C-alpha cells in the first residue's frame, strides 16, 4: 500500500475515533425527568422527640448511684421515628418513616425521597410527626404551581417554621 493511501486511512481511523468521542461526549441527550414533569424531593435530617418521658429518680435510686452520676432525672435516650406524609391532590405520594440513627436509636432521623410529578397546579399537603405516638401535629397545605423541570424541596427546620417548601 502506498504511503499516501496509508496516511489517508490513518486519518480516516483517527477521525472515526475522534467522531465517536465527540458524539458520545454529549449525545444522545438525556432527559433527567419524564417530559412535562417536575420533581419533589423530600429531604429530612431531624431528631425526633424522646420516645419515653423523663422520670424523676427517687432518693434511694440516687443514693445507689456514684456521686458524679446523680442526675435528678432519668431520660431514656431513644428517640421517636420521624414520619412524613406527602399528599398531592388528595392522593398520598409518599409516607415515609425514618428511624433514628445510632445503636441506641438516639440520633437524628435522615431520609430522602425523589418524587417526579406531572407539571401543573397541585394541592400539596405535607404532614409531619416526630413523637412516639406518630401524631401529625404539623401540617402544611398549599396550592402550588410546578412548571416542568421545577425542583421543589420539602424540608423540616424547627427553627424556620417547621415544614419548609423551597
Amino acid at each position, binding site marked *: 500500500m502506498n504511503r499516501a493511501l496509508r496516511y489517508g486511512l490513518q486519518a480516516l*481511523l483517527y477521525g472515526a475515533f475522534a467522531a465517536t468521542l465527540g458524539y458520545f461526549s454529549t449525545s444522545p441527550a*438525556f*432527559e433527567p425527568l419524564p417530559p412535562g414533569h417536575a420533581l419533589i424531593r423530600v*429531604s429530612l435530617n431531624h431528631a425526633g422527640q424522646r420516645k419515653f418521658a423523663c422520670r424523676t429518680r427517687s432518693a434511694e435510686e440516687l443514693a445507689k448511684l456514684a456521686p458524679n452520676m446523680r442526675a435528678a432525672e432519668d431520660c431514656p435516650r431513644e428517640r421517636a421515628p420521624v414520619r412524613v406524609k406527602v399528599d398531592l391532590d388528595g392522593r398520598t405520594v409518599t409516607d415515609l418513616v425514618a428511624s433514628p440513627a445510632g445503636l441506641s436509636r438516639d440520633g437524628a432521623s*435522615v431520609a430522602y425521597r*425523589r418524587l417526579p410529578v406531572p407539571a401543573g397546579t397541585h394541592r400539596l399537603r405535607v404532614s409531619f410527626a416526630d413523637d412516639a405516638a406518630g401524631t401529625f401535629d404539623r401540617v402544611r397545605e398549599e396550592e402550588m404551581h410546578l412548571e416542568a423541570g*421545577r*425542583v421543589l424541596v420539602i424540608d423540616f427546620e424547627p427553627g424556620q417554621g417547621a415544614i419548609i417548601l423551597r
Partner: protein
Amino acid sequence: MDAALPRPGRAALALERVEALFDAAFGQRLNPWRHLGALGFYFFWICCASGIWIYVGFDTSATGAWESLAAMDRNEWPLGAFARALHRYSADALVAVTALHLVRELSRRHYAAFRRFAWLTGIFTLVVLLAAGIGGYWLPWDQLAQWSLTSTTEWFDALPVFDGALTRNVVAGEQVSDRFFSLLIFLHIGLPLTMLGAMWAHVQRVSPARTNPPRALAWGSAAMLAALCLVKPISLLPAADLAFLPARLPLDWLYLFPHALMAWLGADGLWVATAACFAALAALPFATRVPRAPAARVSLANCNGCARCFADCPYDAVVMVARTDARPHARQAEVDPDLCAGCGICTGACPSSTPFRRDEELATGIDMPSSPIGQLRARLEERTAALAGSPRIVIFACRWGAEAAQLDNSATAAVEFLCAAMVPPSFVEYALRAGADGVLVAGCREGDCEFRAGDALTAGRLDAARAPALRPTVPRDRVRLVPAGRSDLAGLRAQLDRFRADLESLGPRARRHALPPKRQEKRHG
C-alpha cells in the same frame, strides 16, 4: 509438543481480524490496538496536564467555580476553551482505550495465573478511573454537574449507611456549601492520584512495561485530540440551579452512563448490576482455569548463571540467586512458577540451548517441561532429514501465530515452538547446517506477541542486536523473520512463496548434511 497447551480462542481470533484491518493503515508496529495500555498512560498525562492548566484559573468555591470557567472561556479563548476541551476529550479517550484494553485482554483470556495481579489491579484502576471521571463533571458546577452530583449522592444514599444523608448536602439549601465543594475538588485530585498508583501497580509484573506509545502514534493521537477540541469545543452549560432541572442534558455517555442506568434500574438495581459486574470481573481469575504450559525448570548442571534468561523474561519470573551447588559460578537462575508464563523465552535466551552440543540428550540451563529443547532438536533433525526437493525450508513457528504446519510439504517442514523467542538463534544455524536452504521464523504480528516481548527479542537476536545473537557467519539472506498472526495463514503462505523464490535465486546451499559432523560421529559411533 503437548496438544493440550493453550492456543488463541475464538474471541481472540475475531478481534485479531479487526486488528488486522488497522495493520493496513498503521502497519503492525504502530497498530493502536497493540498499544492500548500505553495510550491509556498517554491520555492520562494529557488529562493531568490540561487539568493543571485549568486549575490555575479555577475558583474553588461553589459560588465562583462556574463563573471562573466562564471567564476562562471568554477571556482566554482559545486557550481556556481549548484546555477544557482537551481535558474532557483526553479523559474520554482514556476511558475508551481502557475499555478496549479490557475487552482485548478478556478476549485473550489474559486474566489468570501470572496475569492475575495485572488483571485485578486493572479492574481497580477502571473503578477509580470512572469515579475520578464522574467527579470531574461536578466541578464546573453547571446544570450537568448538579444533576450528576445529585444522581451520585442518590445512588450512595440507597445504601443503609447513608440513608439520605449525602443528597442533603446538595439539595437542602440555596447552594451547596463551599466546604462540601472543596471535598469534591479534593476527590477530583485525590482519585487521579490514586489511579496513578493503581496504574503503577498494574505494570509492576511486566518487564519492561510499555507505558509510552510509539512516537508516531503519540503525535497522531495528540493531533486527533487537538482537531477534536477545535472542531467541537466544550460549551459550559448554565450555572447550577437547585430549583430547576433542564429537560435535556448533553450527557457524556463514556463516564456518566451509570446515571442513565440508574434512571432505568433504580438505585438498588444499579448497585446490584455494578456489584455483579465487578465481582464477575474480579472473580474471573479465580473461577476459571486458563491452561498454560508448565513453568520453566532450571538445570543447575547446565546453568552458568549468565542471567540472559533473567534479562529476557517478560514477566520477571526468573531471578538470579546465589549458587547452591559446587559449580564455580556466582549465581544461578531461579524460576517463580506462579509468575512463569510458560513461554520458553528463557530457553531461547540460554546459551546452553545450542543444538551443536554433542550430547545425545540435549539439556539446557532452563527448559520447558512441555517442550524440552532436546525434543525440539530431535524433531528438527527428523524433519530436516526428511526434506526433499529444492529449496528446502524449515519454518520455526510460534504456537500462537499462524498455523505453519498447514504449509508442510516435501520441501517445507514446520517445527512448532511455544513462542518464536523460544527459538535459540543457534537452532537457525543448525537447521541450515543440517540441510535446509533457508529458515523462516514465523512469530506473532509485530507488537502482538502473546508473551509481550517475543517478537522484539527474536528480531533483536536474529539481527545480532542482542544476545544470544545469530552468528555473523550465518548467511542472513537465508533467514527470514515473518510476523503472522493466528488468522494470517494466507499472509504467511505468501511470505513463504516469496522466500522460496528468493532462495531459488540464491541457489542451493553448498554444504548439506543430515546432521553436523560431530553429531553424526556421535550418533553413528
